[in-house]
């Protein structure tokens, strides 16, 4: 089932075209990998879809009309930067999220941080990058939403934390959720994604089912990525 359709989306920053007539559909019940090198438009797309950035032109059609508060309720966005207040304790961040987001599943995040070996008593600034990365993903998936936009969850994260994050994301697949994860670390990701979208210079380069692509091209998504972007 289609969760959202993007039609001829354009976004310009001064002299740079970040998105150039970008059109694509995202489906529920799947994890979609949004792949492309730095500067290809991944984060811009996510920020526009989550309502944090204004598009210049084009259409975004959700399965129901959404605006303002309702849009923000349905869309859980995780930025790639560290957006948590450094002075807060993990337990305070959880309280903060609970206040902020309707339907936030406190128990889910508490269970998750146990598995992720994080303590509610730790202060954010004392956490390692890997620990912070784990916490961010746990907080995002504990939100009650339909569209999850996870921007570069593995950037700068150690291999053990990466595995934890991938396990956590793979377990989130369900018929009601549309999960989109952006990355340029294709190799780590390809086992957990259903569909892949290659974005190149703000345009859609290729979209497909990963297993079908493997059968068709007899190569890994990682190799396909290298082929798509080799001349850039």
């Amino acid at each position: 089932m289609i969760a959202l359709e993007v039609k001829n989306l354009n976004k310009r920053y001064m002299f740079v075209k970040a998105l150039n007539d970008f059109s694509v559909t995202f489906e529920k019940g799947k994890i979609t990998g949004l792949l492309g090198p730095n500067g290809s438009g991944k984060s811009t797309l996510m920020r526009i879809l989550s309502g944090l950035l204004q598009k210049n032109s084009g259409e975004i059609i959700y399965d129901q009309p959404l605006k303002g508060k309702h849009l923000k309720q349905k869309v859980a966005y995780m930025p790639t930067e560290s957006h948590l207040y450094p002075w807060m304790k993990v337990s305070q961040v959880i309280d903060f999220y609970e206040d902020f987001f309707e339907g936030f599943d406190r128990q889910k995040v508490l269970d998750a941080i146990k598995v992720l070996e994080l303590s509610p008593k730790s202060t954010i600034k004392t956490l390692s990058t890997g620990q912070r990365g784990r916490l961010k993903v746990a907080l995002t998936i504990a939100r009650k939403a339909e569209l999850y936009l996870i921007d570069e969850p593995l950037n700068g994260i150690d291999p053990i934390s990466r595995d934890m994050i991938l396990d956590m994301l793979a377990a989130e697949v369900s018929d009601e959720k549309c999960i989109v994860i952006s990355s340029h670390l294709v190799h780590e990701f390809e086992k957990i994604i259903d569909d892949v979208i290659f974005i190149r210079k703000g345009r859609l380069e290729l979209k497909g089912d990963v297993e079908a692509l493997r059968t068709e091209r007899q190569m890994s998504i990682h190799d396909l990525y290298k082929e798509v972007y080799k001349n850039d």
Partner: protein
Amino acid sequence: MKFENHIPIYIQIIDLIKRDIVLGICKPGDKLQSVRDYALELKVNPNTVQKAYQEMERMSLAYTKRGIGRFIVEEEAIVKKLKHEMSDDIVHAFIEKMNELGYTSEEILSTVKKMLNGGKK
């Protein structure tokens, strides 16, 4: 579990289960792990395990009991059948590679015989 990324993962999962059946690690009539549990164990997307299970049903290797779960078919014969299939695949691949090297059927046979005798003529 290490998967090859250039081969569809659901096919590798089916091969994994087939191998377990041949080795007797799981037996005809055994219940397959739930999609979610198996996905977690293999560190793959649950949709991929679902696809593997569906394909196994289509191949008549597994079946669903409503509300209970998925099971390997209760035929002792499948163990033998799978064993034959898997050995055929290996031998086919071997012959193909030997042919590529320019070996004739007789040469392949004599090489294999020699090897089986521990390298002696």
